[in-house]
């Protein structure tokens, strides 16, 4: 089937989509956007988190056909500017600075989920950060640095606004 959707601001028409496939598969395998990671395929790990109409969701649990006419924003769509001359989002900068990236596999999902948290709650407490990230697993168990990064990103965004 054909799916029409908007991804990171640009309208896309994707053909030959299998009816049972996930939005994650569509993004990674049909659109060449491998930022969203495929790990558990059952919503347990959060590595595939993307915005769907402004809400973070596990893209592995969204049927590709359910994205028809919707707006998707992936980790690739958080930085501003053109490829090669991008300005990273403050959340991405904070993850780099805080050393919140180990193997990096969980990082895109964590960044999208943290981005949403700070949009909704500009000054989250540690408990709120942990609650917001409860569905994102880091198998390197680097959670302390990740929480540091979210706190840093929130401070930066607050200072910039």
């Amino acid at each position: 089937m054909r799916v029409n959707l908007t991804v990171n601001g640009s309208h896309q028409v994707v053909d030959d989509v299998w009816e049972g496939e996930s939005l994650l598969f569509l993004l990674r395998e049909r659109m060449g956007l491998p930022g969203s990671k495929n790990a558990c395929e059952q919503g347990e790990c959060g590595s595939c988190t993307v915005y769907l109409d402004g809400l973070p969701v596990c893209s592995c649990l969204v049927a590709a056909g359910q994205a028809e006419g919707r707006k998707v924003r992936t980790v690739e769509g958080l930085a501003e500017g053109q490829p090669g001359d991008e300005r990273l989002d403050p959340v991405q900068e904070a993850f780099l600075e805080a050393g919140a990236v180990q193997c990096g596999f969980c990082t895109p999902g964590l960044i999208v989920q943290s981005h949403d948290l700070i949009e909704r709650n500009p000054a989250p407490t540690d408990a709120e950060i942990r609650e917001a990230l409860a569905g994102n697993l880091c198998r390197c168990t680097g959670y302390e640095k990740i929480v540091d990064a979210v706190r840093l990103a929130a401070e930066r965004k607050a200072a910039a606004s």
Partner: protein
Amino acid sequence: MDFLRPATWQDALAVKAERPDALPVQGGTDVMVEINFDRRRPAALLDLTGVRALADWDPADGRLRVGAGVPYARLITELGRSLPGLAQASRTVGSPQIRNRGTVGGNLGAASPAGDGHPPLLAGDAVVEAESAARGVRMIPVAEFFTGVKRTALAPDELIRAFWAAPASGPQYFSKIGTRNAMVIAVCSFAVALHPRERRVGTGLGSAAPTPRRAPAAEAFIAHELDWDGRGPLSEAAARRFGELVAEAASPIDDVRGTGDYRRRALSVMARRTLTWAWNDHRAGSTGSVGSLGREAS
């Protein structure tokens, strides 16, 4: 596989009548797991997310009619005060990402014995509004909705339109056993709702039998035992007996998440604690906590 995308409720009913083999999908948090893991290959997926009316809720006849497509996240933020037991249960569902997508309608349709939404719906006397193109609307009390493990009273041509529940008239609590606060299927769970006007207590047990179920003997015992007029304290003996009767209502299995004996024991403890919290709130004149995670163990 076909992918069917009705844009209106009437279209959805027509499609389901024509294609009773189509599997309805809302947030996908159950259905897509089964498809991703090759556990299920329905002849067709019936995507209901395009039917905008399902994502609405409205007060009607003194009750709330909550569309089958309202996600858990909105139940917490928009209905936490009216349906506190369900809001507490909603907060224990998966993760924020899952709560943005998962719905009570989908939870009912999947009819897992472990579904977090079921115990508070049972305790709160909720009713499922089912509809078919051929026979119209049918109201099914939640207590009669579950007919077996992942089986429901729905006919093949019926869809879930909404559930109906009265706003809480007294305190409500939900409690759940799991290895962590997020991302767990209940080992077992329990919901209690006080209905002071009717001098009645509602219960709901999860993950404790082939279907979610009430504990009628426990309800009858405690309704008689509580000092509804004087709002006197709940005796420890009565709370304990209530817990025992709740545990006796269960017929749990041994599985990877826990043993039947553990589940019975945990149910008796959760029932005693949640009843105590609810009754103490009632004595203090409050209707209980709103959409919180519940209380720490005491």
